[in-house]
């Protein structure tokens, strides 16, 4: 039975389409839902975890409909939201035991010990979680989620706000879960992490899927090559024959275009003309970032910051 299946899943907040016509089929994999803030990732997860009813369309988890059979869905999933919500006055063990009891698992204490061991928290299990680092708190939340052995695990931005080492560790745990047969549905806006760890990813932009596939197939779908230039200052986009300017992020410029021998030279010429100092310029293997920029467009070109939309999304999904 397919772990996660959606058909035309749609959610409106008033007249704002937060998620539109989402049709997915996910099973036995780490599936990454990528997209900028406010693109509808959290809204999607909330519908799949029975926290938010869809406006139209349907979703099934292990064959159970999220609206009509919500309790059966909740028996089979675990959900770790973005906010790191652990009781800091309780110990790690007490935090996990709470969930084991709420799930009603047999032998809750043993399951708690196993889940803590799995997440590498056994030696700190009896410390108050107020003394835990961000990465440890997130692993504790994973232990809470795993204590009832879910078929599908939903993680909303699991590495947000963590340092590099902690992120790496979280992803190692996620990958090992997948090897144990858990389907993992994860949202993130860190493209590099999704690139490394997800079996398949989907790009969400303004509520709609704009690209879906394995990271390697998506990267291969980019036509031509990518040229990166590291500069100081701001580049004013101008027509360079044969190349498309994909955007500036910090001091990095990205150009894409069909393979051409003089690509680098043309860019260098244009930058010199604008008097912009160039520190580094060269071809690069395409990344998921490039796929994103190509399919969604450069972030600056996405129009002015829509304050109303932003607030609406934050308020409604809270």
């Amino acid at each position, binding site marked *: 039975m397919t772990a996660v299946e959606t058909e035309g899943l749609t959610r409106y907040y008033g007249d704002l389409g937060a998620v539109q016509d989402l049709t997915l089929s996910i099973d036995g994999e780490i599936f990454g839902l990528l997209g900028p803030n406010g693109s509808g990732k959290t809204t999607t997860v909330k519908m799949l975890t029975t*926290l938010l009813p869809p406006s139209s369309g349907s979703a099934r988890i292990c064959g159970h409909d999220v609206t009509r059979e919500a309790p059966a869905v909740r028996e089979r*999933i675990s959900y770790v939201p973005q906010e*790191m*919500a652990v009781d800091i006055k*309780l110990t790690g063990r*007490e935090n996990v035991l709470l969930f084991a009891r*709420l799930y*009603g698992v047999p032998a809750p204490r043993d399951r708690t010990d196993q889940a803590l061991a799995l997440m590498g928290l056994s030696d700190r299990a009896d410390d108050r979680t107020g003394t835990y680092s961000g990465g440890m708190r997130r692993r504790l939340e994973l232990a809470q989620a795993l204590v009832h052995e879910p078929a599908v695990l939903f993680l909303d931005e699991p590495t947000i706000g963590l340092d590099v080492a902690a992120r790496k560790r979280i992803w190692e745990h996620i990958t090992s879960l997948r090897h144990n047969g858990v389907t993992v549905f994860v949202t993130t806006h860190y493209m590099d992490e999704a690139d490394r760890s997800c079996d398949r990813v989907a790009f969400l932009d303004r509520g709609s899927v704009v690209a879906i596939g394995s990271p390697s197939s998506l990267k291969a779908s980019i036509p031509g090559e990518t040229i990166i230039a590291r500069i100081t200052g701001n580049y004013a986009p101008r027509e360079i024959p044969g190349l498309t300017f994909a955007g500036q992020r910090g001091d990095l410029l990205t150009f894409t275009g069909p393979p051409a021998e003089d690509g680098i030279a043309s860019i260098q010429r244009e930058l010199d003309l604008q008097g912009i100092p160039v520190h580094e310029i060269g071809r690069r293997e395409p990344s998921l970032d490039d796929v994103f920029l190509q399919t969604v467009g450069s972030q600056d070109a996405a129009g002015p910051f829509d304050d109303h939309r932003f607030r609406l999304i934050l308020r409604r999904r809270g």
Partner: protein
Amino acid sequence: MKRVLVYLDRDLLRWKRGRVAVVSNLVMPAAWLIFVGLALPVTFTGNYLDFITPGILILTVLSTSLQGGSLLMFDKVLGFLNKFLALPAPRESILFGKILFITLRGAIQATIVLVIAVLIGASLYSPTQYAIMYLILFLFGSLFSAAATTVALFLDDHDSYAAFNTMISMPLFFTSSALMPYSVMPAWLRPIAAANPLSIAIDGIRAAATGVVPLASVGILTLLAGGVLLVCLHVFRHVTV
């Protein structure tokens, strides 16, 4: 029901570990007992401490209930509620666990206040009288913890809720029969005091102390608590869809 107790257990553990709050909630009722109960020169009774004790017990339950209203709101704001709502346990057990916790906490605090009152000279009741008193405290606590939780969920903002809390607690207390009998109240205050749910609870405890079984008080409080609980359940379901 089992899940309700698990949620209750979580809140009790968190409460026990927050030592400052356990003590600070007792200071005000103790101050009322000592500085008003023992010191106020009144002429309508020979033992003002005995008269005021039921009122202070109800005040204790009232303030812990109002304070507890924000607990579920905080669970919502901090992300706990979403985790709980995605669990297979019946969602209502979250709400019932919370109301049970707030009520139980109020009863425990009231017990400590009662011990202080007895230590400084309040008369002892019979076991039956105490049983009636605790029944009333429990009903009153359920009523106000459900009401406070409803308002907090509805306002959905801690500052607004704190303002609401400050706004209603003292007026409720002063317009009740906590500090003086109806006979010495000004005429305009009497009907207000008689309709105040605090007075209904306080009068019930006082009646029990004189050997009467306060059926009316218990009945009215049961109805009120039941009604407010239904409203609370409705608001809870509404904010969690």
